[in-house]
Structures are given as structure tokens and as C-alpha cells.
């Protein structure tokens, strides 16, 4: 990103790595629900959607 950088670790890295212009948001959620299978699936979904919205507000990602 211009003039800034994201510090990514754990789940945030798992999410951003998958923002590759090919996967859909739905796919990203389902892949992470499998990785974090002990967590409540609904909670995983909400966390991902919140995080993606935050990245979009910062204009770090685009939704196709």
C-alpha cells in the first residue's frame, strides 16, 4: 500500500494470502472454517467479513 504497510500474522495472513483475485469471499470463509475447525463457523465468517471490510475501507483491497 502506498506509504504504509500491513503487519500480518496468524489469521490476518491466512485471509490476505487468499485475496488473490481468484477465490471468492465465500471460498475464503469456507477454507478458513476448515483451518479453524474448533472455532464457531459463524464467528469465523463474521470475523473475516469484518476484517475484509476494514481492509476495503483502507483501500488495501478491491472487491471484484
Amino acid at each position: 500500500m502506498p506509504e504504509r504497510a500491513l503487519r500480518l500474522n496468524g489469521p490476518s495472513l491466512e485471509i490476505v494470502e487468499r485475496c488473490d483475485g481468484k477465490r471468492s469471499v465465500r471460498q475464503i470463509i469456507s477454507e478458513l472454517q476448515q483451518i479453524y475447525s474448533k472455532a464457531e463457523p459463524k464467528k469465523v465468517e463474521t470475523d473475516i467479513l469484518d476484517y475484509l471490510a476494514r481492509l476495503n475501507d483502507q483501500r488495501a483491497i478491491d472487491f471484484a
Partner: protein
Amino acid sequence: MSTAIAKPLALIAELTHRCPLHCVYCSNPLELQNRANELTTETWSRVFKEAAELGVMQADLTGGEPLARTDILELVRAARTAGLYVSLITSGMPLDETRLAKLIDAGLDHLQLSFQAAREETANEISGTKAHAQKLRVLDWLKQVRVAVTLNFVIHRSNIDQIEQMLALAESSSATRVEFANVQYYGWAFANRERLLPTRAQLDRSIETLKSAQDRLRGKIRIEYVVPDYYAKFPKPCMGGWGRKLMLITPTGEALPCHAAQIIPGLHFENVRNRSLQEIWETSEAFQKFRGEDWMQQPCKTCDRREQDFGGCRCQALLLAGDASATDPVCSLAPTRAKVDAILQAANTPSHPASSLNTADWLYRPNPT
């Protein structure tokens, strides 16, 4: 104070001082370098590699006008190959559709296009040349290509009332980020300050406009703005702190902690021609000089804000207080704040001379050979 030296985030590469624009607030020094003294392609390529090895993430290719370098494609490619995120900070003047496509093909990640105003007449007066129409063409070409785009508006007394039109221009473009950067008063801008400093009323209106635009455009365009620090209560953390985040290389290879650092008397700068970037960053006198807190005077030395603003700007302290180690005079706690207040008072009197001056009163920056 922590003893470990943080890694720089970005390398600001001033590839040249040559520029077709003559902006009255140019951040280049008053003494401009000629083409004959510029670093070669090979040296810049080595510098980009060393920067990446040092932990730098971004290369900001700027100038002057970076497109004045005939080897710009090689330089973009070299920075990208080194693993850096490559930004081009340009006036858009020496650009056409073919060259733009080649720059992106060479690995350009982000292009920042400068505008001097929203109205052509103002823009051309500020840049001292007819540049505005070309910039609008560049804006159209940018819609056709895949590159991140920032529009940059430098804001001052003569264009601060055009912010609505600037926002409209941004919304009609492919930009996802817009900077509204009020002029900072060093070098050329310091010389032209009387005509550039906005009034308090102008500033308040502009902030209101920008705040509501931030809400309205959230998720579409990220709006960043910098207020003129003369009007601030506390100083800016200049460059993110001296020798903490940024390293600037001049066209001739001098490594500086900030754009204006060369005005500080007695400071010696190392050159990338004969020193490695790591050596300069970690041990050079210039980068060590105002790092940390040991150099601070009161009230900074014991101030709670010293880790937020790092005492403000050293060059401003020199320009306004006559001492580069003093608290930045824009700080409301600074013993020299009265000087800034006097400047503001003059800028806010109805009989202020800015209203009666004409184009001939600007000090324009020249284009070196």
C-alpha cells in the same frame, strides 16, 4: 530509549531535480543539482538492492520529475526486482499512453499524480507552466490500466477553496487514494509563505469538507489530509521521527533523514556512492544526530508526547527558532511559539498583502540543466 534501530519502511529516491514544473512550494532544496551530477542507473540499482536487504519495503521514485530520467524503465524494473513496492511520484508531464504501459510492464505498483489545483488557471499559475490539461489526459489513460492511483493536491491559500472540485475530479478518476497535503514551509515554500499560508477560516472550512468527504467516500476513496502545522497545537512527527522510518537519497547520492536536512549547519551527509545503505542508516552522524531523545531540550525532554511527535521538525526549529535542537516552534508548549502566532496573525488580517500581489511576486523554482 530503545537501543535497537528500527528498519526504514521506505526509500525516497529523488532521481533528479530536473522538472518541467516550477511549483512555488517545491520540496527540493533551493540549490538544485544538474543532470551531470546525477547517480547512474547502476548505482541506483545497487541502492535498491541494498535497501531491500536492509528491510526497506517501498521505493518512492520521485524528483524533480522522475520521468525526466531516460532510464526510468530500468530503474522501476531494478526496484521491483529487488523486491520493493514501487511508487512513481510524478507530474505526469513527460508521459504518454505507451510509456505508461511500459512502466506498468516494468513492475510499477503505484502512481501518484500531482495536481496544483482543480481550476486550470490556478494550477498553471502555481506550476508556472501550462500543465493542467496534460494531467487530465493522464487521468483518462490511468482508467485503462491496472495500477494503484493516488491523486495528490498540495493545498494553500490560493486553492484551498477548490477542495469540492478537487474531490469531484478524484471521484471521476480511478484513484483509490487522495492526499490533500497543506504546504509545509521549507525551501521554496518558506520563501513564498506569505502568499501560501491560508486563513483560519479557510482552513476550518476545508477540514469540514474533507471530514464529510471521508465519510461519504468510505470504501471507495481513502482521503488523507495534512493540516498546515503552523495552525496545529502540537507538532507533526516529522518523517515519522528522525532516522526512524524514512531515508531520502538526493539525485547526487547524499543520504538524508528528510527533504530539507541539508539546511542544518554542521551536519555531514554520507553518499551512497561510497557507503552502504546499512552503514549510513545505522551509524552515520546525520542519521544518529536527532535519533532517540538524548538531543532533546526542554520542554521536549520530559514531555509526555515526546514518543508521539519526537519533538517535531528539526528543520522548522532551525528556520523559526534558529536552533535545530529546539522544540519545534509550532508546538503550543515551545518557548518560541510567539513567532508562529505572529505569522498567523499577519496571515489573518484583512489587509494581508496576499490579496494584492500578482504572479510576478512568486518565487518560482527553475529547471536545472
